[in-house]
């Protein structure tokens, strides 16, 4: 029984064994929210990424990101302190957010579509985003924008659920730098 479980676990992890090396220093997970129509940029400094992508076989692609929510960056220190609180990311109780892909496909013109499950604050939702792939020196850059509803994940509860002040729609912007030939 135990052995089967281990075997199954090994099988599940197997694709990750072939994951390309990600250059985290060149990768970025950022986001833009709108506060009274003012675009405010933020990002997460710490995250890990396991990505498999082959332009010849996009359907076989996989992506798995784990984000340390307490590494959030916002324009001011006040905003960072606020964002970690219970009403926002509640980083004490939910230290990580995760995205696990469920599918990738080519949609033409060098563009691809990524679908998967995003979990934030213990809530999992199906999300989907287009992305592009281009080579830059020794790296392959995978870039895309994922629009999410912050309220679907209860990010900004209580008085902050007022979308007149902070828009419900937040755009997550990702850039993953894959080391080629690795």
């Amino acid at each position: 029984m135990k052995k089967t479980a281990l075997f199954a676990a090994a099988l599940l992890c197997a694709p990750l064994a072939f994951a390309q090396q990600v250059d985290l220093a060149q990768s970025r997970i950022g986001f833009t929210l709108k506060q009274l129509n003012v675009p405010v940029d933020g990002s997460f400094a710490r995250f890990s990424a396991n990505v498999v992508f082959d332009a010849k076989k996009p359907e076989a692609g996989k992506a798995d990101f784990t984000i340390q929510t307490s590494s959030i960056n916002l324009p001011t220190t006040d905003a960072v302190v606020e964002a970690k609180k219970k009403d926002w990311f509640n980083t004490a109780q939910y230290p990580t957010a995760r995205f696990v892909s469920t599918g990738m496909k080519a949609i033409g013109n060098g563009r691809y579509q990524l679908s998967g499950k995003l979990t934030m604050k213990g809530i999992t939702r199906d999300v989907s985003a287009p992305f592009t792939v281009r080579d830059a020196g020794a790296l392959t850059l995978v870039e895309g924008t994922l629009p999410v509803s912050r309220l679907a994940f209860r990010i900004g509860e209580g008085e902050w659920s007022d979308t007149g002040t902070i828009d419900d729609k937040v755009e997550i912007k990702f850039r993953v730098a894959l080391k080629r030939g690795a």
Partner: protein
Amino acid sequence: MNDPAERYAAPTVLLHWLMAALIVATFWLGLTVADMPLSPTKFKWIAWHKWLGVTLLGLLALRLLSRALTRAPALPATMGTHARTMARLGHLGLYALMLAVPLSGWLMSSAYGFPVVYLQLFALPDLVAKNEALGDALRDAHTVLNWTLAALVAGHVLAALKHQFVDRDGLMARMRLRRR
């Protein structure tokens, strides 16, 4: 001799009182939000504070134009050289601060990484790149400039009252809204 019935040009007078009212309102709003904990209401009031401040910047441009294109009435002949110099310097200071105060606010906003989107309609250009330490310094500058403005305004009001009730030289009439 100056004509005691002479006023500043109508646009100058109108802008003087409109800006006076808006400066008091913007100042009060600034003090209020500076003490508020983060909340949606604070964000809304800061937005209104910025919009009012930017409006004042625009009105200042109109006012300088109106002041440059029209003639200011001569000061009462009873005023001595010292009083005239004080008045001139005081007014110069008020103009300088009416420019510096909103400009420091706009600079602070840019430095903090919050673009100013006037009335939620269009984004004003960022004056400096994002830099939180610079933002903090500009915030201090905004505060100091504001209290300097407040002091100068107090002196301005006191001087006007002295002209009205001590000197009784009818100087206030130069800024009255309606023709007699």
